């Protein structure tokens, strides 16, 4: 995954409603109507959120009869999580190494 793709994923995840939509989709595909009734926001607002998620590759959308269903795509989320895992650890690992450097320096 490139930095540009990661930007899109993190941009998409930076919104509480979009995270809630992803959590809902983890339980199974859903239509726009279903998501609209679930989150008490307007249908255009839901559609806008879905567009952002689709652009980030976090969901795909399929047509079933007259309904458009949204489906969670796991791969980008897992890549983003790996990067976050690294960054969460970033300062702990850095400061442990600084401890070592200061210890070496004083001996």
């Amino acid at each position, binding site marked *: 995954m*490139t*930095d540009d793709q*990661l*930007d899109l994923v*993190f941009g998409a*995840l*930076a919104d509480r409603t979009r*995270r809630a939509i*992803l*959590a809902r989709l*983890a339980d199974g595909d859903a239509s726009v109507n279903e998501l609209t009734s679930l989150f008490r926001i307007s249908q255009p607002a839901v559609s806008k959120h879905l567009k952002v998620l689709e652009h980030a590759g976090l969901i795909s959308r399929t047509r079933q009869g007259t309904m458009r269903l949204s489906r*969670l795509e*796991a791969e980008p*989320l*897992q890549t983003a*999580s790996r990067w*976050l895992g*690294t*960054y*969460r*650890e*970033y*300062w*702990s*690992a*850095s*400061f*442990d*190494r*600084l*401890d*070592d*450097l*200061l*210890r070496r*320096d*004083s001996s």
Partner: protein
Amino acid sequence: MSTTENRDGTVVAKVGDHAISMTREFAAGPEKVFRAMHDPELVAQWIGPEQLEVTEVTGGTAHGDTWTLVHQDTEGNTYEFRGVVHGQPSAEAGSFRTFEWLGMPGHVSFERLTFTDLGGDRTRIEATAVYLSAEDRDGMYDTMGDGGYHRLDPLLAGL
């Protein structure tokens, strides 16, 4: 106020709506800790986890100096950070700088780093970063400690 204690003892806390503070103690005097955190040659020896290679570190301790940090991961992806030094940094006065990750350009923050002498060759550092929006701050907090992204873990585990 949200506070997280990381596994190495660093305490990460939300301050107001726009700031994060990070506090930790080191077993050395303020002058030595200050030097380790400002001399690019020394910074290169500890910044980042071991699996992230440091490919470039620059910095300075004069008003207007620029600083850069470039990491490279094992897949060859680079992560570049940069900013400008404000004022005359010292162990007594602390140091001020801007911070930007080029992975999210434009999300610039302002940082203050202070060094408190605890005596007996111990120093407590406090790093405070102020972000342009509450969203930037919350996003950063989530990556630095036990933040909201943790709630994605159960979701990921269920996939």
